[in-house]
């Protein structure tokens, strides 16, 4: 069966439609399905990069994630930094994230984008990880910062 390859419109669509999908889903079912979608995306990115179970250093992981997700990739966000933490987790700093584009909120807002990094680091480390957001552009911060820690 032929697939729709969007020969005219190409691979990208407006953030407006992304925000309606994300915010609309959260209004019905809260964050979990959005985080789950992000985790799946993050895991698949790492798999496509051949980094499953790898032990590469944080700077190299940042470079590869930024290539996949940043301006030369799907444009989800700019991966500013990835810092390894003593507990085996990572601190991720991103800017221009799709989740916060044009959004203001009193609570951290990056369910999908943070989910991508949870899935990515679960794939990289092979361990179960959780995430929480310590700073968020939707709340007025200069960047969104995620703490990805072992469960």
């Amino acid at each position, binding site marked *: 069966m032929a697939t729709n390859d969007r020969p005219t419109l190409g691979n990208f669509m407006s953030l407006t439609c992304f925000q309606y999908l994300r915010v609309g889903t959260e*209004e*019905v*079912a*809260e*964050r*979990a*399905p959005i*985080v*789950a979608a992000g*985790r799946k995306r993050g895991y698949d990115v790492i798999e496509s990069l051949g980094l499953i179970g790898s032990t590469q250093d944080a700077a190299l992981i940042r470079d590869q994630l930024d290539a996949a997700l940043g301006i030369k990739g799907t444009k989800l966000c700019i991966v500013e930094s990835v810092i390894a933490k003593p507990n085996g987790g990572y601190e991720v700093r991103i800017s221009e994230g799709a989740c916060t584009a044009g959004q203001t909120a009193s609570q951290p807002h990056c*369910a999908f984008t943070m*989910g991508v990094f*949870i899935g990515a680091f679960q794939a990289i480390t092979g361990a*179960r*990880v*959780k*995430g929480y957001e310590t700073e968020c552009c939707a709340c007025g911060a200069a960047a969104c910062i995620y703490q990805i820690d072992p*469960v």
Partner: protein
Amino acid sequence: MATRQEQITSALDRLSANLGNDISGAVAVSMDGIVLASRMSSEVNADRVGAVAATMVGVTRRVTNELKIGAPEEAIIKASDGLFMVLPAGDQSLLAVNLRQGANLGMVRIEAREAAIAIGRVIS
């Protein structure tokens, strides 16, 4: 001292022991759908069940909020070959329990609520 994960796993083990043949698995999950500890059988994808269970709690909270009937205490799916029960465990996590057909729901509710309280205390 036991780690958080060991304490949560211990609560799941107590639940399994107290419910005997009525229960076929249990999993503690964050509200974002991240599995914190699992006692699901190897045939079940605990990660996927965790995401679905968290979504169930999210939908349930939206429903109860829309209907103005207070905070949800549990959600149960009864299927042809078993039951699936989800209940909040504090305000940051939840407990999902997979039950066999014919399970004593009265006993399950009592034991599951106790386990959920124990898990909620560990997470908070």
